[in-house]
């Protein structure tokens, strides 16, 4: 499968996974909430396709896309979201804390900006141990309000650590437009520390990959950390329960983004337009993925919960 078709497949996989997550929530089969990444798939997929399997990522409360793009298995993801023993974290983490050493996933973090310093520490290890690994720290534009992010960017640049900070600007800090919370120009914040940086269309996976890959390589050569601002849009609410959104954004705005700026449709049109795939081929990918996701979900639904006496396990290593 060509590189672009791979990217298409991964974005579709995230979309289909999350549609099922939403479905599990509305059918009251999933405990708690989930923060959907639908609409932002091109960022995770474009960035992670520039990484090696042993490179590290840190993720956020809106992290399913990052985890899947880095190689997580949908069945173990579903199981974790449902609080099952077979899940990535034995059911102890849930939607906001998927972690997986096998794919370099240091963990999704439910404190906004909470992983910035951790990611910088992983980059410190990589350099200290001469491991040649790059770290990508994903965070939303809401984290621009957290001081520890700037402490981390300062440390990364000061010590030339192999890390790429990826800011996903989906326009909304929860229920508040980012312009109400964010002064000045975002790119100048990275420039102030001397970080290499790029601002990309986060709906165009080819553009994301094109901007990130050279900065990842540069970081790997220990030539300096980087900052990426990916402009994107959260198609759904802050979380699955956030369905009445009129008070903070207009329906027309959502409809326009979905109709004109869907990252999967954008890549699909490119593939068909360039003769790299036809509608049938894309349809077959869809059908295959839908089947895979259904099977993964059903397996997770049938999987057992942890035994209650596991509650005290894993507090200490």
């Amino acid at each position: 499968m060509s590189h672009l078709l791979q990217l298409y497949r991964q974005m579709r996989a995230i979309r289909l996974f999350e549609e099922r997550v939403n479905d599990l929530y509305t059918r009251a089969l999933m405990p708690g909430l989930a923060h959907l990444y639908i609409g932002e798939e091109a960022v995770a997929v474009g960035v992670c396709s520039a990484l090696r399997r042993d490179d590290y990522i840190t993720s956020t409360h809106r992290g399913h896309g990052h985890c899947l793009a880095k190689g997580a298995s949908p069945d173990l993801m579903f199981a974790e979201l449902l609080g099952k023993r077979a899940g990535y974290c034995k059911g102890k983490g849930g939607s906001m804390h998927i972690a997986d050493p096998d794919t370099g996933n240091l963990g999704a973090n439910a404190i906004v900006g909470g992983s910035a310093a951790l990611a910088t520490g992983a980059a410190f290890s990589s350099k200290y141990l001469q491991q040649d690994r790059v770290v990508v720290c994903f965070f939303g534009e809401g984290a621009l309000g957290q001081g520890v992010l700037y402490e981390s960017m300062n440390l990364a640049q000061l010590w030339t650590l192999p890390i790429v900070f990826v800011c996903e600007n989906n326009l909304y800090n929860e229920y508040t437009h980012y312009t109400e919370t964010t002064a000045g120009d975002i790119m100048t914040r990275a420039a102030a520390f001397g970080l290499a940086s790029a601002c990309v269309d986060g709906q165009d996976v080819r553009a994301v990959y094109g901007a990130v890959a050279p900065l990842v390589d540069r970081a790997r050569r220990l030539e300096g950390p980087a900052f990426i601002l990916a402009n994107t849009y959260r198609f759904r609410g802050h979380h699955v329960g956030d369905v009445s959104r009129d008070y903070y954004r207009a329906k027309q705005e959502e409809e326009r983004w979905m109709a004109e700026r869907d990252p999967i449709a954008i890549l699909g049109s490119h593939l068909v337009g360039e003769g790299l795939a036809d509608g049938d081929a894309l349809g077959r990918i869809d059908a295959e993925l839908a089947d895979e996701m259904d099977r993964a979900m059903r397996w997770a639904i049938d999987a057992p919960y942890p035994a209650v006496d596991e509650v005290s396990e894993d507090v200490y290593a």
Partner: protein
Amino acid sequence: MPDAVKTTSHAERAEHARTDAFSAVSAGSAWDVRELTFGEAVKEAIAEEMRRDPRVVLLGEDVAEAGTAFKVLTGLVQEFGPSRVIDTPISEAGFTGLGVGAAMTGLRPIVDIMFGDFLTLVMDQLANQAAKIHYMSGGKWRVPLVVRATLGATRRSAAQHSQSLHAWPSHIPGLKVVVPSTPYDAKGLMKTAIRDNNPVVFFEDKMQYKLKGAVPLDDYTIPLGAADVKRVGSDITVVATSSMVQVALGAARMLEDVGVDVEVVDPRTTWPLDEQTIVNSVKKTSRAIVMDEGYGRYGVAAEIAAVIAEGAFYGLDAPVTRLGAMHVPIPFSPPLEDATVPTERTVFDTARRLCGK
């Protein structure tokens, strides 16, 4: 006659500690010992572990050439170089979080928090990140990190540089908390903390860095969660932590003169907590004072008092009494500051009252 009772000075307390430790270490042992200060013992533990394991690195404000604000780590950067003894920006949250991430990915960092009061700045990294990562990941990631911090008042440093906040990390599942009181304990516990696969917060009493005591030349470690009976007695148990252990021992010598025989139990770690040794001691003596320099309310002393109430209730002849820092911000003015911390005199009076002597 309380007024006639002689109160020992800090220097005299240090001398007593030295003698006590020497006899404790020498008794029944062929080990070669020498005298080290508390600060030297901490440094020696770190240096030995850095020689033993190249994954151990040291991070903090002015830890390299300055050897920390308290000059505890002087010389380490000369031996291990600036790639392992690393001066950081004044970004406690940033470099502590960096330590957490480095610990997850193959290193064993020691993070230096100059004043324990600055733990306020790192609580997210400590309580929400370091403490929970192993559990949240279902045991997949671990965080072998040591955070060094100081505690202790009476240094005339006022409200933001004098607190003893070890109750805070003790409250969080996933953290271990060490509160050594002698050079011997500090060295053995620091080595264990560095080798532990969990985040450990290690509190050093900044007023005791010059306290001298016997430390063996040979390699040794002390397990976390093992209390030490610092003085054997029969009338009353004083459970004391960190800075309060020498105060308790000083008070015990005063109480000897009025016929009260004090047992001093030093938990050495507030978590894990050696409940058994504490409870056994109180069952034997039937009376207990719990001393800790943290704020008395909702603190370490309160927790240990509850452990005693639950474990030794039917053996008690008097109410368990807490002695902690007063519930006020630590003031600057010397007479005010001195009034906030329990003293030998406080212990003396309390113990006599509880024993009816």
